[in-house]
């Protein structure tokens, strides 16, 4: 379990992390999402005790990282950004070094090394030196390092960065499989990744925590959540549009596609609360009143992508503002 309270980090005059609080429980994968430079890595460096916080506290398994550093760090496996590892060492020697630091001995040491070699698929390159490894293998070697002591907490800074699509899927599966008895924090800027593996999600932008919720919850908060798409059998799309616009609770209607027989339209709800998800019912009612047949009717649950765009400031916007 990791608890972060009012964490602040100044780099000289730059406020990189601004009053961030959250916690991660055992059995949970927390996604840490944000544009580049948002402060994800800085936050992770404070959680793992690499950087001292300007103010605020981090507790790992109820141990304050600034007071009980060594004990607290023994409870965290950490994959730093860019997966650093000693280039002149072989994969095997590197993992042996990590095992020795964790005071593993004899059979337990061999078993721990074999276990991570197997789950990270490193067995066949164990004697290769790290500077000759491809990016994917190198990241997996460093990931293996973070998992070696089987710590109850994992902090992974962009674990899938630089991997090919198959490797990405592998690593996601691996993280998902470990999740049941660990507290895991992973940072990413890939939205599909979050939906694939995270139970909960935090978005941070310019050092500030913007929101904290399940991926579904956050999707429902995007502006396209509740939008209804309907395909109606008609030749006159404009007429249908007028009719649909007349439904109460509809803000506007746009025709997406039309051909000889059908028109596909989207309806934007005017409500912003939970009632907007009921718009489809009103549409179905209206269409049957009008004796129109429709072949498609569904309500969008929103997309993380839209939500992310809406709550974060893009780099070009920042530049324009500056």
């Amino acid at each position, binding site marked *: 379990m990791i608890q972060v309270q009012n964490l602040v980090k100044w780099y000289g005059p730059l406020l990189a992390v601004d009053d961030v609080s959250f916690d991660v429980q055992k059995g949970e994968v927390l996604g840490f999402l944000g544009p580049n430079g948002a402060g994800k890595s800085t936050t992770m*460096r404070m959680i*793992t005790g*690499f950087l001292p916080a300007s103010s605020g506290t981090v507790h790992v398994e109820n141990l304050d990282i600034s007071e009980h550093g060594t004990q607290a760090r023994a409870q965290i496996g950490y994959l*730093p950004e860019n997966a*650093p*590892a000693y280039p002149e060492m072989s994969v095997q020697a590197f993992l042996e070094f990590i095992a020795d630091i964790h005071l593993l001995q004899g059979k337990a040491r061999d078993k721990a090394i074999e276990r991570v070699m197997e789950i990270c698929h490193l067995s066949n390159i164990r004697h290769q030196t790290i500077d000759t490894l491809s990016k994917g293998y190198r990241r997996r070697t460093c990931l293996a390092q973070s998992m070696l002591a089987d710590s109850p907490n994992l902090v992974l800074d962009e674990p899938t960065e630089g991997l090919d699509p198959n490797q990405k899927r592998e690593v996601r599966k691996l993280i998902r499989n470990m999740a049941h008895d660990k507290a895991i924090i992973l940072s990413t800027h890939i939205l599909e990744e979050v939906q694939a593996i995270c139970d909960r999600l935090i978005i941070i932008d310019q050092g500030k925590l913007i929101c904290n919720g399940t991926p579904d919850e956050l999707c429902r908060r995007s502006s396209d959540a509740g939008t209804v798409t309907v395909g109606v059998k008609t030749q006159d799309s404009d007429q249908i549009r007028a009719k649909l616009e007349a439904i109460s609770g509809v803000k506007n209607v746009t025709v997406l596609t039309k051909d000889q027989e059908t028109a596909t339209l989207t309806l934007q709800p005017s409500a912003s609360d939970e009632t907007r998800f009921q718009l489809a019912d009103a549409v179905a009612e209206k269409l049957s009143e009008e004796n129109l047949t429709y072949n498609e009717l569904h309500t969008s649950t929103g997309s993380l992508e839209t939500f992310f765009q809406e709550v974060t400031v893009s780099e070009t916007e920042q530049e324009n503002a500056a």
Partner: protein
Amino acid sequence: MNRTFSNIKTIAKRELASYFNSPVAYIFLIIFLVLTAFFTFNVSAFFERNEASLSSFFTWHPWLYLVLVPAIGMRQWAEERRSGTIEMLFTLPVTAAQAIFGKFFAGWIFLGLALILTFPMVITVNYLGNPDNGVILTGYIGSFLVAGVYLAITILTSAFTRSQIVSFITSVVICLFLVLAGWPPVTRVLPPWLDSIVAKFSVMPHYQTLQRGMVDVQDLFFFVSVMAFALFATGVVLRSRRAG
């Protein structure tokens, strides 16, 4: 306590292995052995002197170490910083002090090994005459301590920077000061009041007592305290500038 010892050993072992995994170690050993032989036999004219001692051998050590020890120590923290492994190291259950000592001992053991490889010198003088082997032993101890002082200083400079070259140059300059501050050709031209202050920092007087076969607690204290100070300062530097 157990954990402290184990961690220092683990880190020293890794560091030492990394010396031998790169050509640096072998190049260093060859250059060191060739240069000590060259200076002893050719420059100091060992054979013409007709003395059964290694003084002409030891005289050159503080000068040879001036470039060779920084070459061994410069990478210790600069490389950890440059490659980012410092972030991994310091987020493991290891304290900065354990890491610093571990790396220092690795370097010092390596330098000790280089000294041990000069044993043909000892055999040669014993074969040619009847040297005082006690003086040879204190000579070796003095040489080893000077190497340790240079190493600790290089480690301190290497904690400041990501660049091995910057670390190398800075430590050569500082070590050169430690030598010159007590070297007669320099101290002779200094006014006496300045000389007495500057000479306090020099390794030379302490080294020379050991070369004469005398073991004085004051000399040992000097070497150990300079090493301790430099390593302590390394800890302060690393703690305050971990990320940069």
